[in-house]
């Protein structure tokens, strides 16, 4: 009783705190609203203009002052150098002396030039206005052209599988190369893209060169490991000269012959081995980079961008408008004319950045101007309020949500459970942060949709496992490997398009059926500790199949290691086969969001099928076994049979899932890559609200949305907020494993006994 009272007491104080937070939030929202209203008023607009003129003048005078300071500094340095004692002085001392001189010159120059007096501002203001106009025109066109270029770039890079093949076919002939490129990306030949022709040809050449380097590196690393495997006694090779050593190596490893171009590298590696052997050590082989690229979608490289005629014309307009402004500035501060060309162009960049910061919002303008003015005068409080209206609003919303969650904590946790409530609030906060960092929401939404389709079916594979009572089926990696076998098989047969995809799916399912059956027999014998067993059986199977991938007799040169002639490669590009075929099926753009229609439809269709199955007689019996095996047994249901059905179903869905995953990712990854998939799927379905005993289709859909949403947003925001990656990966590890731990504590292992 007393505990309940305590609970109520803490509950009431929590509710009061929540209400207070909501109150503060409301105040913030009102302030933000007021700021917004004020920002559009006439007086703030005009004072903003005034600020801009000041900022431009200040930038000009500041540039001048700094040029004097730099000059004084270099003169001082020259003077010190001439001195005999120069070498005796430390670097810090020299720096301090020079800085002192520069500071002195700066103060002197500031007294002269800071706050320049302007009698007639109208000329200056007009020229600034003109420059803003031309800059705006220029930037609008430039952005449009860059976007068009980016679309072409992405299409081309996505479509071309092997650049070396293209350049090899075309030879030195640029025209031929271009027509080959146009075959991959027909939009290139349109008249409006004629100006980009040379750029794309040089892009293709550079890409092919880069690819060649990569291929060579691959060959070299294979040669090295082959050599390390074949040479048994390094000590015997010590002390030879280069030619003799090369011959000795070739004699022991045939592969080296005919690869003379890697001779220097191989010899260096061999020397390293010999050195190590002399010290009684072995050289640890560098681990192959196992598909580290987790970049979804192609990033556009703008190095090859070239503008149209019209764009350069607009640029000329900029030039002339700036010349007018410069003339006005020189008439105010005559000494500006004496600056060097380099300083002039630097100053031009600064001034253009002030005049047109690339964004029209009050906040950006205000922040840009004030950053360039020595002291802000005028109605600064109102201005500041207007400028921070957006931040205030976001803060207000965040506090409001926090307050609401505190007030309704009990009800929310009863409805959604503690972790789901926390993760949902976290997701909303991430959205607010995305607005704060100006991250493009439509692009991210498109990303989330793709990743939902990508991981969705894998997450769905968890569901039958939970329903039939084996809990979280970490051994779904067995199904994944079956699916990957299907993918590799379709690559071996050079299959393309929908046919290839369907073949991979069907082949995968056919392999998954017997594997799943055998796996279910194993699990039926060890009721009660399935999760532990399935995890380690899954791990062992992945490790076993690592050997399998090396030994299986695939022989299509596109998928096996280039040199040794056997063994599958780690990462296989599906670009020439069926990458993104489902994504691109009936795809459309709405509000800037690219919707992968086919992918989502396939995912939802799978969900529907599983839902229909769970409504069937067998499905209901299976769910009964999962939620209460004793009761099910008593009512005449064969527990083992239902568990077998559930396990096989889970394995089969996983096989389908990995094929779809690979086509959406664009690459199939073998070896150790599938190992963690079980954990990802398990955490997603648990976040969706499933437990280790009960799961619904809704949990799958909601879970995969929330999980992928948090990951995509988190990654973008972490990149924007913290220099250096890693934070989003840490977040993924902690969320993913944290939710599984929570589910384990809730499952109450002891109560099972």
């Amino acid at each position, binding site marked *: 009783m007393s505990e309940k009272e305590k609970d109520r007491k803490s509950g009431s104080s929590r509710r009061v705190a929540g209400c207070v937070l909501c109150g503060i939030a409301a105040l913030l929202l009102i302030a933000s609203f007021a700021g917004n209203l004020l920002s559009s008023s006439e007086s703030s607009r005009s004072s903003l203009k005034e600020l801009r003129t000041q900022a431009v003048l200040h930038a000009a005078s500041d540039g001048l002052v700094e040029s004097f300071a730099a000059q004084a500094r270099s003169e001082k340095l020259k003077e010190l150098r001439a001195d005999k004692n120069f070498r005796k002085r430390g670097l810090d001392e020299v720096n301090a002396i020079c800085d002192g001189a520069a500071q002195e010159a700066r103060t002197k120059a500031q007294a002269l030039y800071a706050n320049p007096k302007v009698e007639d501002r109208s000329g200056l203001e007009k020229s600034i206005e003109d420059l803003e106009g031309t800059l705006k025109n220029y930037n609008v066109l430039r952005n449009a052209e860059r976007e068009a270029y980016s679309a072409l770039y992405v299409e081309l890079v996505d479509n071309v599988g092997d650049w070396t093949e293209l350049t090899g076919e075309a030879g030195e002939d640029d025209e031929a190369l271009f027509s080959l490129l146009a075959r991959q990306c027909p939009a290139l030949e349109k008249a409006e893209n004629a100006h980009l022709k040379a750029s794309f040809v040089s892009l293709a050449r550079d890409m092919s060169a880069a690819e060649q380097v990569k291929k060579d590196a691959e060959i070299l690393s294979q040669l090295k490991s082959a050599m390390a495997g074949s040479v048994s006694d390094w000590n015997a090779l010590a002390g030879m000269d280069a030619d003799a050593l090369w011959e000795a190596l070739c004699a022991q490893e045939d592969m080296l012959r005919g690869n003379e171009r890697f001779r220097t590298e191989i010899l260096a590696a061999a020397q390293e081995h010999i050195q190590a052997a002399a010290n009684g050590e072995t050289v640890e082989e560098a681990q192959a980079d196992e598909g580290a690229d987790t970049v979804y979608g192609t990033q556009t490289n703008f190095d090859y961008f070239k503008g149209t005629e019209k764009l350069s014309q607009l640029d000329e307009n900029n030039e002339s408008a700036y010349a007018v402004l410069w003339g006005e500035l020189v008439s105010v501060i005559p000494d500006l004319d004496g600056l060097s060309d380099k300083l002039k162009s630097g100053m031009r960049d600064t001034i253009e950045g002030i005049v047109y910061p690339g964004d029209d919002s009050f906040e950006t303008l205000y922040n840009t101007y004030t950053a360039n003015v020595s002291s802000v005068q005028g109605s600064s409080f109102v201005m500041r309020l207007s400028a921070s209206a957006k931040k205030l609003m976001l803060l207000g919303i965040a506090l409001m949500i926090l307050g609401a969650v505190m007030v309704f904590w009990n009800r929310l946790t009863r409805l959604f459970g503690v972790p789901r409530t926390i993760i949902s609030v976290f997701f909303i906060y991430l959205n607010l942060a995305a607005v704060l960092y100006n991250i493009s929401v439509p692009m991210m939404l498109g990303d989330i949709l793709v990743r939902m389709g990508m991981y969705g079916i894998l997450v769905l594979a968890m569901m039958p496992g939970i329903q039939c009572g084996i809990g979280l089926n970490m051994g779904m990696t067995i199904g994944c490997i079956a699916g990957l076998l299907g993918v590799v098989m379709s690559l071996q047969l050079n299959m393309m398009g929908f046919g290839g995809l369907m073949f991979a799916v069907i082949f995968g399912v056919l392999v998954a059926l017997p594997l799943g059956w055998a796996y279910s027999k194993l699990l039926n014998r060890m009721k*009660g500790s399935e999760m532990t067993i399935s*995890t380690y059986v899954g791990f062992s199977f992945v490790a076993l199949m690592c050997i399998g991938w090396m030994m299986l007799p695939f022989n299509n040169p596109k998928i096996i290691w280039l040199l040794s002639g056997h063994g599958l490669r780690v990462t296989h590009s599906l670009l020439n086969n069926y990458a993104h075929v489902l994504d691109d099926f009936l795809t459309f753009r709405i509000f800037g969001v690219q919707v992968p229609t086919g992918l989502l439809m396939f995912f939802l269709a799978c969900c529907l099928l599983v839902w229909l199955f769970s409504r069937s007689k067998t499905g209901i019996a299976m769910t009964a076994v999962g939620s209460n095996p004793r009761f099910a047994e008593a009512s005449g249901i064969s527990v083992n049979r239902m568990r077998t059905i559930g396990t096989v179903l889970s394995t089969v869905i996983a096989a389908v899932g990995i094929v779809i995953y690979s086509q959406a990712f664009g690459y199939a990854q073998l070896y150790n890559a599938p190992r963690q998939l079980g954990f990802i799927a398990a955490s997603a379905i648990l976040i969706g609200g499933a437990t280790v005993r009960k799961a619904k289709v809704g949990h799958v859909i909601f879970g995969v949305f929330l999980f992928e949403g948090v990951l995509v947003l988190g990654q973008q925001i972490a990149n924007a907020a913290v220099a250096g990656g890693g934070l989003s990966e840490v977040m993924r590890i902690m969320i993913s494993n944290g939710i599984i731990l929570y589910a384990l504590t809730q499952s109450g292992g002891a109560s099972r006994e």
Partner: protein
Amino acid sequence: MNKRRILEHVKKYAVTYLFIFLSVFFIIVSGMDIHYVASQLILRLNRNAFIVLALIIPIIAGMGINFAITIGAMAAQIGLLLTISWGISGVGGILLAAFITLVLGSLFGFLIGKLLNKMKGQETIGSMILGYFANGAYQLLFLFIFGSIIPLSDKVTIVGATGVQNTLNLTGSVGLYKAVDGILQVPFLTAFYVLAALTVCFSFYQYLRKRTTLPRMAVMVGFLAVLIVLTLVPGIRSIFDKTPAHNAIRIPVVTWMLIGLLCLYNTTIMRTKLGQQFRAVGQSQTVANASGINVDRTRIIAIMMSTVLAGWGQIMFMQSDGIGTFQTYAAHEQVGLYAGAAILVGGASIDRATNFQALIGTFLFHSLFITAQSAASNLFGDSAVGEYFRAFLSYGVIAVALVIYAWRGTQKNKIGMVDLSEKAKS
């Protein structure tokens, strides 16, 4: 009867015998120099024995393989990082790191124990996932908190960025390399003779106090005598002794004394009241609870001990001969996996383990580890297969042990159920 007992013994130690066979086979196939294999094996025993021994107490307390020893390793690594950052070298540095490990390991162990008490019956998987989770927290700490919120010297941080360096050197002025291993090293054979002499004296003492019979003592002394005679055979002697081709294999005495102390600790604690409680809780929590033992508290103590011991084991690993660098972000990752696999190879199960099993398991597991790569390259013409084979062995042996354990459990249950139903009938 006797036949049955042998059969049972073989069944129980099937994995161990398989590994003995595999080790011998691999050593032959790999074509590696036997001296090299022996020296590597002894090196790896020095490094890993301590961590593997840290797994015993939780196994006896019925908590399965404690894969959360990775968290102990993390505590040790935090200790080492602080030691390096403060610039304390040598034995003093090791002692400081050990002290930090004691404090942090106890705290972490307490938290792990609390959590594992909420998932009884799922400790193995729970501790494994807890290890993964803690890895996330560890990365957060090392990438974003150390060096910015918690200031460290620029010996360990990356200047101009956040976070700790990827690799830290333990050699040179840092002075932690071989800080324990290097104190006193004697040739392997000398150490072996001394140990043999001590054993003979000890068993004679036991005989005098009537704790052992004459035949037993005779067998022991005879066995040692055979071994000593074997070491005198030139072919075998040259494996361990100095020859023109190689140096003598040496043993770090202090390290082995510490390992011996831990073995002694593991056996003596089982004779205390606490040890009896561990055993009681491990056999049946219900019975233990009924007889007035605080089950949850006992389990927490077991995990705390294991975590701290594993942390110390990680320190021993880091300072040991042939390592020399501290892979800040990855050194702890495989600790749980390799230690768990090693103890299972030695014939331990999810609920039973001894010092001897831990040591023999480490020995066998690492003998495979050393030879797998060249053996696979000789067998299949590809050294990468050996790498994968090692991974398969580690995971596979754990999977097999889990399956055997779970299978026995269900069989017992079935028998129990049959008994009950028969009783109900009568």
